[in-house]
């Protein structure tokens, strides 16, 4: 194959300009929209930055495909009644290597960035508090440390700007814990304890949504979430009358003994 077989015969500069223009336009529109809603945890802005990075990379890839297809349809349509064949071009090794290597670099870069973000959002700060999450068809309840495992049903209170380590337990089927404004989700799996780490950064009220199909009440399995100042939170916990029921405590113990949480199992190795 002669060098420049294609570049001589295609308006490469114009096509490249079209790709740049289209990807800039798509990126500009899509970056200006706040897709994921309010960013109310330390993880949220990092995950949204990752999304923005992906929007730009995706806009470029999408534009390359669309411009390439559009130009082909513009330039190489058969004239009516033309029954002849196209040119017998079977490939071009340099081009094929290019479109293998460049996507590989892009996805490895995106993967590396994701890995970094994942480590950051799960990093322990030391200034933390553990809250137990109990789920069952179709209700949430929560246990707080300190005062003999205070217990609240249907409403979760947490202090702002403190890392909360949620230890999750399910009594029946799999449920999933999601607060969209925190961007954090984790399944509650019967038989084991799972963990999610969140540092809320804003005082406010949210909704906790179950995102794993758990039966006919799945759509309505919600709880209130209240993020408040440290002092207000302490006062609220003090005022709680209920303790975590014994059967829930027993199941937590069983979970941890028979099937220690994955993170701890790996760290022990």
């Amino acid at each position, binding site marked *: 194959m002669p060098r420049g077989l294609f570049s001589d*015969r295609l308006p490469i500069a114009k096509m490249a300009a079209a790709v740049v223009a289209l990807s800039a336009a798509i990126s500009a529109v899509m970056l200006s929209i706040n897709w994921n*809603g309010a960013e109310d945890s330390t*993880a949220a802005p*990092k*995950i949204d930055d*990752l*999304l923005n990075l*992906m929007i730009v990379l995706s806009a470029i*890839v*999408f534009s390359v*495909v669309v411009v*390439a*297809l559009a130009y*082909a*349809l513009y330039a*190489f*349509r*058969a004239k009516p009644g033309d*029954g*002849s*064949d*196209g*040119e*017998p*071009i*079977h*490939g*071009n090794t340099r*081009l*094929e290597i290019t*479109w293998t290597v460049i*996507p*590989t670099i892009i*996805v490895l870069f*995106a*993967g590396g*960035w*994701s890995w970094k973000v994942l480590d950051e*959002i799960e990093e322990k700060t030391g200034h933390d508090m553990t809250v137990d999450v109990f789920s069952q068809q179709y209700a949430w309840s929560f246990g707080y440390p300190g005062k003999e495992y205070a217990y609240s049903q249907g409403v979760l209170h947490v202090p702002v700007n403190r890392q909360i380590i949620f230890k999750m337990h399910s009594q029946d*089927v*799999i449920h*999933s814990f*999601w607060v969209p404004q925190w961007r*954090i*989700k984790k*399944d*509650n*799996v019967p*038989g*084991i304890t799972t963990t999610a780490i969140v540092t809320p950064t804003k005082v406010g009220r949210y909704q906790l949504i*179950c*995102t794993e*199909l*758990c*039966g*006919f009440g*799945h*759509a309505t399995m919600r709880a209130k979430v209240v993020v408040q100042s440290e002092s207000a939170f302490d006062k609220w916990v003090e005022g709680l009358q209920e303790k975590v029921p014994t059967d829930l405590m027993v199941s937590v113990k069983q979970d941890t003994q028979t099937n220690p949480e994955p993170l701890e*199992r*790996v760290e022990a190795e």
Partner: protein
Amino acid sequence: MADALKRPGWYRAALCTVLAAAFGFGLVVVLRKISGLSAFQSEQTGYPQVVVPLITAPLGFLLGIGCFDYWLRWGLGMPTIPEDHSSHGAHSWKDYFKVNTDHKVIGIQYIVTSFFFFFVGGLMAMLIRAELAQPGTQIVGAGTFNSLFSTHAVLMIFVFVIPMFAGIANYVLPLMIGAPDMAFPRLNALSYWMLPLAGLLFIASFLAPGGAFDAGWTGYAPLSTGAPLGQSFFNVGVQFAGFSSIFTALNFLVTIITMRAPGMTFWRMPLLVWANLSTSLLVVAATPFISGVQFMVLFDRLMHTNFFQFGSGGDVISYQHIFWFYSHPAVYIMILPGFGIISEVISTHARKPIFGYRLMALALIGIVVLSYSVWAHHMFVAGMFSWLRVPMMFTTLLIAVPTGIKVFSWLGTLYFGKIHTKSTAMLFALAMIVTFTVGGISGVMLGMVPFDIHVSDTYFIVAHIHFVLFGGSVFTIFAGIYHWFPKMTGRMYDEKLGRVHFWGTLLGTWGTFIPMHWVGMDGMPRRVADYASQFGNWNLLISCFAFLLGAIQLVFLYNMIVSWRFGPKAPANPWGGKSIEWLVSSPPPIFNFDEIPRVVGGPYEYGVPGARHAIMAGEGAEVPATEPSVVGS
């Protein structure tokens, strides 16, 4: 009458079905009596007196309709009835309702049956979108809603997309490689006949007490192990769909490896053949995992085996690992044959050789290898070992590379070609490139763990899967059906109606599934019958486009039925294709070829002066026996 009950056919099938069901029922009742248990057991997860007949009755049907006659005679040492090929070919519509060993008849049987389930599953989608058009509950309750989306997904995956590709390949692939039939025609017939049984079992679950299975098509334990009887219909139905799939894949593997015409080396196989070779490699190794895991759920339900019972030493998450070890390769089972179809359609209608043929074939194999190492990306928030997330993220992202090679090579194929867009097949193929790219991009985004944590189990997932499955697989199915319709039926379809179908489908697909990304990221979970009122307007819009998408399929149905009956006669090679199926008449002769063709070059030698792919009987002298292959140069 007595004679009709002895011959293979519907009368004997009905009799055998009843007898086998009675046998299964009696077996359970008698064994329970002997064991001192009550004859009937009606715990919601139990009902062995119903579940065992669910297994025996379909086997009885297969026996009665005649799938096992030859093997049984042979196995019992009776004189076998020599194959006189009188049942080859279909002479009237009634022949499609008989056990037939002709790959062309089986192909049509597969395609028509799969489209039947496509329309049933589509009606369910319409009901789902009607319920979701407004927040709150209007049309169906939450329990029925769960049954509807579960059955919709199961019908579309197990008895539409997967067998549809098997059907298209069944018809086209033996012709393409110059084989008179599949390697095991009787096994091929058995594979087909298990398919309607699986579909009927899924649909029949609506009759079970407690309603149809409602744990999603994923059937996660322990929701599925504790679900009402309908779940067992799913567990058993998957076995029939799974075995059908495995037998067909074995058949394709042996056919492709051993029955290629002389001269057809691996590097001269059309890409559709490569695609089905790759798919079959996935099916034979991965499908046993879903068969196994559904048996484990069935045993947990019926016999309390505790595979996934967390209170008794079972492990809930292991269900997901086994399930996805099949079900991730399954998404490639549902797209690789489509990649093959798109390659054929684009090359033919652009009058150009495939750009980078060898890399295209290697990319398929690359996807096969990688697809076994990405399953846990469905489980990033499932509570599995956390260390597994990062390696699975990288393998998932890397699978975009061979997929990208396919897309870029299709685009490369268009350049310096003579692109004909009058065929609806080509329109679907070109649209699939863009639509599938969008699905691929959202797939890469989902592969990135931190973003996936936010959007897993939201409408973003629903958007992604429909972009790859509808915008990808279903578009390729339509491309394939339009492309080979003249070959299969001997008639031309109506291009005007085809265009209406194409533009309606394209608009419906984008209008329905693009906004789903947005509501998902903004906080709407999936699999919910009711949702926060803030998403009301978007859902109304989505439902309107979904109804358009559903309604426009009726145009397709009308076009296919009317054209099959009254369409103008099709020439042997309406698109000017080079591969062997276009060198025989439309429809092909009963035994495909009077004499096996001789393959002398690559399958896509458009524009190469004097190049031939194959030489048919009686025209051997004009062309030199060996031509230098220009493929990949």
